[in-house]
């Protein structure tokens, strides 16, 4: 149970360690292990008591510990193009080697894939299914080229929920526990609510949160959304943030928050420390991102329609109009001074709308922004020098804007 003496970061580490160790132990006991994409409906496996691990999270951890390049090279040597998402390349390398600097994850007995983040994962998981000859449960969330989620999409997704339950019953040889599902739905919704609340406290000026911490907390909302401990952790994070706000404390002890920015896209895990340090050296705190909303998968515990809609509503599964509205809202709510767009070589669904999103957001909000080229886990596609140049340019623009608004209000 949750030990009150730990602070949120310690507790986070403990929960993650337990999560990975638990999965390995379950594998040793001969239990089923699932691999899943990061925003898939985990409720069903959780309700069935199937240990689920998340290759994207694992790949990110490998990247952060500087172990991605060798795995990437290994998968490339088997014909994986350097152009495909580096999470997939890290993971396909791991699949072969089954060793990494970020520890081991047990090999899967079944796969859960949901394309509400991208269609890349479909191909990636197809390949794992084929290589290991294991079942794959596909949750297909049709891309919302209209603003909202259409009615026939919801029907289709609900049908898939039923098919998934049937498949899980076949795979496990056990009947599905609907009462437990309701419970898990309740917990998952609570996790999402507290996640959003805790991360939303960064709206305060100054923000109580060192923004890059979201990249750490994220691991838990990815890996353990259906567990009570997750709700507890985010309650604790919220409490810590509220205390800091009350005390008027900003993100850092050693310097004030000068600029508040939004970060669009995934972190450069392989350069997490360096990018963070540079931003901090300029007094820049990342307060906004699309992450709080990405896992705001909130629905009533008996509302399957709502659950279908929530999973389908993810940022990258939405059209440009929604994306622009969403970012403008973030800019407003988090009182953002500027935006850094990560043109992430890995993530085509994000990048190929990004130029237009940037233009429209700038038109509407008038706040400055820059874009840099990088990659989440392939260090070869990131240049610290270019990153710093772009950030400096942003700083100049933000300063000029602050200056002129000060002059204007005199």
């Amino acid at each position, binding site marked *: 149970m949750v030990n009150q003496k730990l602070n949120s970061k310690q507790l986070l580490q403990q929960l993650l360690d337990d999560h990975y160790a638990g999965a390995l132990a379950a594998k040793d006991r001969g239990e089923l292990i699932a691999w899943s994409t990061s925003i898939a409906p985990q409720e069903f496996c959780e309700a069935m008591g199937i240990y689920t691990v998340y290759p994207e999270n694992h790949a990110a951890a490998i990247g952060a510990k500087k172990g991605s390049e060798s795995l990437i090279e290994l998968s490339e040597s088997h014909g994986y193009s350097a152009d495909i998402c580096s999470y997939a390349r890290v993971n396909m390398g791991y699949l072969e080697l089954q060793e990494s600097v970020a520890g081991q994850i047990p090999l899967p007995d079944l796969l859960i894939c949901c394309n509400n983040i991208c269609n890349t994962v479909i191909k990636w998981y197809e390949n794992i299914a084929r290589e290991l000859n294991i079942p794959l449960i596909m949750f297909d969330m049709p891309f919302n080229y209209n603003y909202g989620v259409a009615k026939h999409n919801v*029907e289709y997704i609900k049908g898939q929920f039923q098919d998934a339950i049937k498949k899980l019953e076949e795979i496990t040889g056990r009947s599905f526990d609907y009462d437990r599902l309701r419970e898990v739905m309740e917990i998952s919704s609570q996790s999402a609510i507290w996640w959003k609340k805790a991360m939303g406290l960064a709206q305060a000026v100054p923000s109580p949160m060192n923004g890059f911490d979201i990249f750490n907390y994220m691991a838990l909302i990815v890996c353990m959304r259906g567990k009570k401990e997750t709700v507890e952790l985010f309650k604790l994070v919220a409490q810590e943030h509220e205390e800091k706000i009350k005390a008027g404390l900003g993100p850092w002890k050693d310097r004030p928050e000068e600029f508040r920015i939004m970060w669009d896209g995934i972190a450069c895990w392989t350069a997490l420390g360096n990018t963070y340090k540079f931003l901090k050296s300029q007094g820049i705190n990342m307060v906004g991102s699309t992450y709080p909303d990405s896992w705001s998968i909130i629905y009533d515990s008996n509302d399957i329609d709502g659950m279908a809609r929530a999973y389908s509503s993810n940022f990258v599964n939405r059209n440009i109009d929604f994306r622009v509205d969403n970012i403008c809202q973030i800019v407003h709510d988090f009182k953002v001074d500027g935006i850094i767009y990560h043109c992430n070589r890995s993530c085509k669904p994000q990048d190929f709308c990004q130029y237009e999103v940037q233009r429209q957001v700038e038109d509407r909000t008038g706040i400055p922004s820059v874009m840099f080229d990088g990659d989440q886990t392939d260090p070869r596609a990131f240049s610290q020098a270019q990153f710093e140049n772009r950030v400096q340019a942003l700083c100049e623009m933000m300063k000029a804007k602050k200056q002129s608004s000060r002059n204007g209000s005199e």
Partner: protein
Amino acid sequence: MQAFTAILNELDHVVNHPSEAVRKFKKETGREVIGCLPIYVPEEIIYAGHMLPVGIWGGQTNIVKSGAYLPGFACSIMRGIMEFAVQGTYNDLSAVICPVHCDTLKCIGENWKVAVPNVPCIGLVYPQNRKSETGIAFLTAEFQQIRSQLESLTGRPIADEDIENAIIIYNEHRKTMREFSKIARDFPVTVSPKVRHRVMKSAFFMDKAKHTMLVKALISELRSLPAEEWTGSKIVLTGIIAEPDSFLDLFTDYGIAVVGDDLAHESRQYRTDVPQDGNPLERLARRWADLEGCSLAYDPAKKRGQMIIDTVKENGADGVIVTMMKFCEPEEFDYPILKKEFEKAGVPHLYIELEQQADSVEQLRTRLQGFTEMLYRR
């Protein structure tokens, strides 16, 4: 042979002047032309509405303006399409339909709405769980939306009966294209790789009933001739598209015949007919359920490799040339699996990365030469 050449010239003309074909149709009929982005747009619905569906598959152009929408690591076919779109090449179209098969296509549809507001873009999602009844119901609903949008665009209703008829015409066209591909094997000189490609491509800009007629005439001309001897090598092509044309010219230089293909731009369109049972839109949806061996149609069993190997065997090919559309993730993910299977089955293959806008294919010469030499030694 004269008739043969005359038909080929007609098809070639259309391939070289698609805009002219579009304008001619509009002038003669007063009706609309609808652009179909890759791949599997249900042309039957458009056809049933007495419009002309035309394929939009990029082409050679200088990438200038589309850089405002897409970074350099988008596939060249889509960068080409965006370029043409922004430059106004598609302004004669009344609408385009964009099926969002991959992450790139999702974004193309979104950018299109902004970049080319005068040509409406109609979205279409193909379900991944394409064989389940819920998937088929979903796709039927998507098709119904396409139908309604086309109806409101033109002000004319599209009758079930007309869709049924269009299905007959399209199934006949598919069958004819399969026959053409088969007979072309026996005429590797007359039906060179480039000619074969152009016959396939011309279908994108023509009334399918007419195209069927012309291709049938080509087939009967060929039937009257003795099969041609071939001492060169025979290969099967796989990938999205085998362009630019200069690439296929190299095949002729090195004595390579194309005896079959698995290209999205060519035979993948023609492998699967629309099945018989159900209402017309549902039948169209069931075609997607029946389709196999395409990187865009979800298949955890990944049957594509074996299908290509079978195509190699059935057509007496010596090997496979993989024309990889650079930056195409669906195809790039399939490749490591294909590679393994080809190696296991002892089918030689050559992997070539292509960009549609490549202004020179000279650097591919040595690779093709090396590959054919290797095939001869076997």
